[in-house]
């Protein structure tokens, strides 16, 4: 085991260790898994000097208390919960030095739904099929294959690099490092989509209705899928296809007329028509929506979706080179 990082003194109902998910096992029916909001994971890792895909905590809205037995370099990204130390709010999207003995409280709700916490060196996790992400169905990977609970202790995955050591020294000297990230995505109501594989099966009226009024997120949503309530959407013909691959962001129209957006832990193939596909650029915004929030679909071309996503990824890459050099 690596160095002790965090003692969990209080824990909400669904906080798990996640990374970018697994590769190569979709053909065996294993969900990709990984963080719901990759962008926040990448930002949090970037700020702590980790690799983009180092294991992080995905924390959902309910009270948590984390105690730090040693100095740690930490960054929060995403939303949903405000980290607080002794009634003082810690900033999100910044690199923070958490001194030994600190107790971080996460209780106050803020916009967004999922908070990501990265710690320099990454969080040690069990590998399941080459990924640290927690697979709740198989109960493998992450922290013993389950959500965290009170009494758990998290360890550091890797020794910190010399860059991270220097970063700690700078922060220990009292210098504050300020980064400015655009975090509008947390509250952005617009979700860009491209046409899905079975788009043409929709009635003409439904094709228009999808973009005319908002849909709201229902409480039945989970890491497997985000379920929507809104205008009745109908297809021209019976609503079943021969089971065919699906991916994160695929919008399915079920036989009862419900829309489900498949997310990180979704199955690998499905028999419902794939009417839309959420653009990769807006998957983080979607992951930050909580039950009751409304979203508005906006149709874009595959080219626009691709350009927006590539721009974001290249910007992240550039920032990493700038910060970590």
């Amino acid at each position, binding site marked *: 085991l690596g160095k002790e990082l965090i003692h969990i003194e209080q824990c909400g109902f669904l906080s798990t260790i996640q990374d970018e998910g697994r*590769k*190569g*096992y*979709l*053909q*065996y*029916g*294993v*969900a990709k898994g990984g963080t719901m909001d990759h962008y926040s994971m990448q930002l949090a890792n970037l700020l702590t000097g980790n690799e983009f895909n180092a294991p992080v905590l995905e924390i959902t809205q309910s009270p948590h208390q984390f105690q730090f037995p040693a100095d740690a370099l930490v960054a929060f990204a995403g939303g949903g919960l405000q980290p607080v130390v002794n009634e003082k709010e810690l900033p999100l999207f910044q690199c923070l030095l958490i001194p030994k003995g600190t107790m971080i409280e996460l209780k106050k709700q803020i916009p967004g739904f999922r908070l990501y916490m990265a710690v320099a060196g990454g969080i040690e996790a069990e590998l*399941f*099929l080459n990924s640290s992400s927690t*697979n709740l*169905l*198989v109960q*493998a990977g992450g922290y013993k294959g389950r959500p965290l609970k009170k009494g758990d202790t998290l360890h550091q995955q890797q020794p910190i690099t010399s860059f991270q050591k220097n970063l700690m020294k700078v922060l220990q000297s009292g210098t504050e490092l300020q980064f400015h990230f655009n975090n509008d995505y947390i509250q952005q109501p617009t979700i860009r989509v*491209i046409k*899905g*594989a079975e788009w043409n099966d929709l009635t003409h009226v439904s094709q228009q209705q999808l973009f005319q009024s908002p849909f709201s997120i229902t409480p039945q949503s989970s890491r497997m899928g985000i379920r929507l309530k809104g205008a009745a959407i109908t297809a021209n013909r019976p609503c079943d296809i*021969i*089971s*065919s*691959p*699906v*991916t*994160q*962001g*695929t919008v399915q129209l079920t036989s009862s007329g419900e829309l489900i957006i498949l997310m990180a832990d979704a*199955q*690998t*193939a499905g028999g419902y028509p*794939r009417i839309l*596909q959420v*653009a*990769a650029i807006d998957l983080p915004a979607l992951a930050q929506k909580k039950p009751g929030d409304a979203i508005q679909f906006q149709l874009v071309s*595959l*080219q626009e*979706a*691709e350009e927006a*996503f*590539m721009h974001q*990824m290249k910007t992240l*890459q550039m920032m990493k080179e700038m910060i970590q050099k």
Partner: protein
Amino acid sequence: LLLFVLSLFMVIEKIISLSESVVLISFGNEISLQLHEQVMQAKQLIESNPFEGFVETVPAYNSLAVCYNPLLIETKQKTISSAVEETITQILNDHSNQPLNLSTFKPFLKVIPVCYDEEFGIDLEELAATLELSVTEIIQLHVSKTYKVYMTGFTPGFPYMGILNERLVTKRRSSPRVKVEAGSVAIAGNQTGIYPFNTPGGWNIIGRTPLKLFDSSRPNPFLLKAGDEVRFEAIKKYEFENWARN
């Protein structure tokens, strides 16, 4: 004979982008061994000629997803996805005008022992009534065919196998069970499957295998994959217990 020869050629119905990192190839609109063979052939061709950025494939009954990392692809084309679609079409075209070399596709045959004892085959009695067959006849029909694994999904390693003898074709249970025991062998529609984990499930349970469909201590933890062939072999309860003990 002509039809048979033609069936060895690959016929791609369409190739589209499912997302910014997934291309979907469709081969036709039915469940058939012939279409599935084409899916598996395309899978093998792409995996043995991987392009820059290629990540993995996902086979299903009549379609194949090809996943890639757009960050690793350089192109002068208007979009990365159209470049990938073109690359894949190229890989398949280069090979699909030649008859399939069947010897390289010799499927892996796995014999799976199943105990059809009433303790495990908890839906056998009810099925016998619905299908107007005796329990012995159901078991006999189930073990007398070789099945193809069309795909795995639902839960890790759950094999969708077909095609059942038409006398066994039946609906799913009207309400799924909250917990089906791992190893349960079940039927629904014209398919048969095995539950790898204790999970909810709506298929009709006719027996249980002592084999582990998923075992993380094996180099490849999965017992079955798409393209494999499966035969079931009836075993007695004491054999099941001995197997489970070893």
